[in-house]
């Protein structure tokens, strides 16, 4: 028995074996040249005796075998030529059987047998049967495997398959199949037997060696798959049952796994489909240690691909109830293989789902069934912690998303969220992101409140903090990306029907409000804008089309808006809230809801006063307030006065002079809305502008005082532009002389600023002047007006 004596010894034995083969092959060739049959047989038998060694590992033995194989080809040529050896092939067939040792005898017999079949002096089936039967004498696993592999090889082109020369009369394809099946069975038995040899200590090595030999066995299945004339009937009645019987009965995990794999790969898809029952039954009978899931996965992958290959085959799947069978089998396998890790079960479910999606895309109930089974399995384990299993679950959940470009379909799967519940928080988020991405990619619109509810249930990992999440662990960037996705998602929720849309908004709000301070700044704006859009839509429809209660709807929406924005105060995020209030105010204004708009403004002002302390933020806020207020025309005089007064007041109290100045001249617009019905209070405009001038002056002086030189005249030029604007718009309180004096003032300032040096021209100022000149030259009504200004 071969031991772990070492590779060196093995190399030596191999070298000896090769030398033996070469030595005897030399004499064999000499005898071949002399056409001396006796000597040929003698030396070929001696040569083949080298294959009787037990000392080599399969790999080394293969090396030796190949060398003998090459020599046997020469021998076969000699046997073929009767004129060289002078014996009818039938006598030759007997003669080689006189060899005393079985292994050389069988190699020679196979070689002559192949010639015998070729000569057609005997029915090929008889010869094949004899050969495969006689090979039983070699029971040593490795020697037997190689011998039978030799038999398979020399007989491969001589099987009586359909269309072959050797078919006909009594030789049918059945005989070919019988032959290959028998050889396969015997080879598998030998292969399995290897493991029972030798002590347990070398088990691992044996496994490896056995694995190297597996293709010898598998080749038979390949041949079976290639035999012409094996139709479905024969496959179903003969080939598959026999192969499966062998697979199941050999009770060896390596063989079972490999052979099932082979079966699945070798035979056509449609055969698998038609024999699904048998195949699956065999799967459930495999040894518990066999990785059945990979086998089943491969099967389902193949069937899926088959289904995808052509729509014509789909009815076959229905006919054989492929889904029900697969589903049953998987259930059984999972139930029986208790030690199968959860990841295995999940992999199976993924495959089954993929299969279902490909084959029965219209059967959502199937998909749901798969998910349901998955839930059951997941519920039976305490907690899903295996990362790979998690990955499989994600794949499981992603599959329907990919298949149904319309996410809505997935939302109708009742088991979908239940599966998601079993994910850990991180994975849950990943999954939620996938869902959102899928929606985005397909641009699908979710249009009912129910679906929105389901959807938010699915992505709740993103919407709120789940129990036990450690906030500090979150990566800032990831978090932002997640929340941005949620924000984008909100825009995909849309319905033409205002009522339904309102419901959707309710639902969304309900969920978003649970998000906590970190999320709200991301999620509130889209919600607000979504609601505002609804407002606009209602307004565009004329408001009263749907009856009396429409204003009520609107009011309701604004209530929600108000509450929603209020929530931001907890963040706190005053700038954002302020902007949103202003947006809402504008929307309310467009709907002619004065009190509502006023309320929003009030809120905005309160925020400004109480929350916004940063001077820069204040500047921005003021401009926003002014801009919005200017456009709103719903307010009555009183309300408007209050608001404009407030705004102007705020403007004047800004910290920096230039900011003050700019805010104040901006406020001038509040009194002059360029609109037929707009307010046109020229006097107060002028007041604002003058005040701005004063501030600009003060600013200039401050600069002088602190730096010794006056600053740029930009502020003045800006005010000049405002003057020109109102002048053009026909404000009677803005006179050409005002403008003229302002221009002079600027010129003076520029001179004093630059002292004796060359006149520095301010580009803004020069282009303003150029504009005035242009208007003069252009003539017409405006030209006449401008003519009054002297430069």
């Amino acid at each position, binding site marked *: 028995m071969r031991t772990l004596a070492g590779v060196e010894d093995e190399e030596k034995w191999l070298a000896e074996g090769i030398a033996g083969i070469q030595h005897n092959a030399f004499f064999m060739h000499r005898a071949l040249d002399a056409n001396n049959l006796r000597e040929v047989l003698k030396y070929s038998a001696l040569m083949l005796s080298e294959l009787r060694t037990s000392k080599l590992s399969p790999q080394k033995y293969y090396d030796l075998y190949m060398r003998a194989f090459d020599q046997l080809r020469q021998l076969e040529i000699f046997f073929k030529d009767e004129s060289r050896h002078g014996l009818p092939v039938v006598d030759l067939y007997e003669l080689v059987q006189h060899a*005393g040792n079985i292994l050389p005898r069988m190699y020679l017999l196979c070689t002559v047998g192949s010639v015998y079949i070729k000569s057609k002096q005997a029915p090929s089936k008889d010869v094949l049967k004899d050969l495969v039967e006689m090979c*039983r*004498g070699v029971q040593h696993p490795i020697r*037997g495997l190689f011998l039978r592999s030799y038999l398979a090889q020399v007989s491969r082109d001589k099987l009586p398959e359909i269309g072959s020369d050797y078919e006909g009369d009594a030789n049918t394809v059945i005989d070919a199949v019988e032959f290959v099946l028998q050889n396969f069975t015997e080879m598998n038995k030998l292969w399995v*037997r290897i493991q029972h040899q030798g002590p347990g200590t070398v088990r691992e090595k044996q496994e490896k060696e056995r694995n190297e030999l597996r293709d010898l066995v598998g080749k038979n299945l390949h041949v079976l798959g290639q035999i012409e004339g094996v139709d479905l009937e024969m496959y179903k009645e003969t080939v598959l049952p026999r192969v499966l019987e062998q697979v199941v009965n050999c009770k060896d995990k390596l063989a079972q796994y490999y052979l099932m794999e082979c079966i699945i790969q070798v035979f056509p898809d449609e055969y698998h489909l038609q024999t699904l029952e048998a195949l699956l039954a065999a799967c459930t009978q495999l040894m518990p240690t066999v990785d059945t899931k990979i086998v089943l996965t491969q099967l389902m992958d193949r069937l899926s691909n088959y289904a995808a290959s052509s729509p014509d085959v789909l009815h076959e799947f229905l006919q054989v109830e492929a889904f029900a069978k697969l589903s049953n089998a998987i259930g059984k396998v999972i139930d029986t293989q208790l030690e199968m890790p959860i990841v295995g079960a999940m992999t199976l479910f993924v495959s089954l789902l993929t299969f279902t999606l490909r084959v029965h895309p219209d059967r959502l109930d199937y998909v749901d069934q798969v998910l349901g089974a998955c839930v059951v399995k997941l519920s039976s384990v305490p907690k899903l912690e295996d990362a790979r299993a998690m990955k499989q679950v994600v794949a499981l959940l992603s599959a329907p998303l990919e298949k149904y470009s319309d996410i809505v379909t997935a939302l109708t799967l009742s088991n979908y969220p239940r599966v998601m519940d079993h994910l850990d928080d991180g994975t849950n988020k990943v999954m939620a992101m996938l869902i959102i991405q899928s929606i985005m990619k397909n641009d699908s619109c979710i249009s009912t409140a129910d679906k929105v509810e389901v959807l938010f249930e699915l992505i709740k990992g993103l919407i709120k903090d789940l129990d036990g999440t450690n906030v500090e662990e979150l990566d800032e960037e990831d978090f932002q990306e997640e929340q941005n996705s949620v924000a984008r998602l909100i825009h995909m929720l849309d319905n033409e029907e205002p009522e339904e849309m309102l419901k959707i908004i309710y639902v969304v709000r309900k969920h978003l409000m649970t998000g906590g301070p970190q999320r709200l700044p991301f999620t509130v704006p889209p919600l607000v804008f979504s609601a505002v859009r609804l407002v606009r839509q209602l307004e565009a429809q004329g408001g009263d089309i749907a009856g009396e209660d429409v204003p009520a709807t609107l009011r309701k929406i604004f209530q929600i808006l108000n509450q929603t924005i209020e929530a931001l105060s907890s963040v706190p995020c005053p700038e954002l809230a302020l902007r949103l209030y202003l947006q809402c105010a504008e929307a309310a204004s467009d709907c002619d809801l004065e009190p509502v708009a006023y309320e929003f403004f009030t809120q905005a002002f309160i925020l400004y006063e109480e929350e916004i302390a940063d001077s820069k933020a204040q500047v921005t806020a003021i401009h926003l307030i002014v801009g919005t207020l200017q456009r709103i025309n719903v307010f009555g005089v009183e309300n408007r006065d209050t608001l404009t007064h407030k705004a102007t007041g705020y403007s004047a109290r800004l910290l920096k002079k230039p900011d003050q100045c700019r805010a104040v001249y901006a406020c001038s617009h509040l009194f002059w809305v360029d609109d037929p019905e707009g307010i046109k209070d020229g006097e107060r405009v002028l007041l604002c502008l003058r005040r701005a001038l004063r501030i600009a002056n003060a600013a200039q002086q401050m600069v002088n005082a602190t730096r010794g030189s006056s600053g740029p005249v930009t502020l003045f030029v800006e005010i000049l532009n405002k003057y020109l604007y109102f002048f053009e718009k026909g404000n009677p309180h803005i006179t050409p002389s005002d403008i003229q004096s302002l221009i002079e003032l600027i010129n003076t300032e520029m001179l004093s600023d630059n002292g004796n040096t060359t006149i520095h021209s301010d580009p803004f100022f020069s282009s303003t002047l150029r504009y005035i000149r242009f208007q003069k030259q252009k003539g017409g009504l405006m030209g006449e007006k401008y003519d009054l200004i002297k430069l």
Partner: protein
Amino acid sequence: MNFLLGAFKPACNISITFTDGKNRKQVPIKKDNGQIVMNPLFQSQETIAGKIHIDPYQGKKVEHNGVKVELLGQIEMYFDRGNFYDFTSLVRELDVPGEIYERKTYPFEFSSVEMPYETYNGVNVRLRYVLKVTVTRGYAGSIVEYQDFVVRNYVPPPPINNSIKMEVGIEDCLHIEFEYNKSKYHLKDVILGKIYFLLVRIKIKNMDLEIRRRESTGAGANTHVETETLAKFELMDGAPVRGESIPVRVFLTPYDLTPTHTNINNKFSVKYYLNLVLVDEEDRRYFKQQEITLYRLKEETS
């Protein structure tokens, strides 16, 4: 053709030819000195006829008291060397006393000779047929010439020829069932059969089928038994498992076999056995021996 021993004997050269010597089948026979010579083949009830030539050497004459030819069937025991036992002895007188000056030819004929036993060359015993020509001379000693010939007897196939089937084993160790398709085989036959393993608890290395010849000579207390293994044919390589069935197919042609001889003239017997031998990895041998009967079937050709 048959210039045999005694070519340089004085006075004359004696040669014996058979009537159909050119067409008669010749078979090889191993002589005492190990040489292989070809001898003509006869069977029982055949007429053995031919001519005897006596050829005096140049210028010599042969005086004799008569010439005779004898046909002898002899059994020779090697442990009792030189002691022949003639079970058949026929004589033909060829010439009355006189002188031979030149080549002289005598035809002879033994018609329908009863030759019940086959020529046999064993370890301890030999059965031969020979023609003995004697030129009797009174003073110078007789001139004797021998011509061997071979006798083979053909029998029809036996009417009853059962298969050999048997289950043997060692308890809890090895149980096999073997079957040979016949119990009586002719010399060009094929032994077909199978070995079925019912229980295998030992590590078998290989299995051979041996063909053994058991030759017993003498009788009673003087019986000598000699056993030879004529063939060793490997049936199986490696260790089978339970339920395995190994085919047997052994062609008898290549082996030097004779028919089974039972109690030939109360002098000797030759029996054949099939010996199935299993060898385990420690080179222990387990075997079972079965007697088979061999017979000579008339070949279609010749």
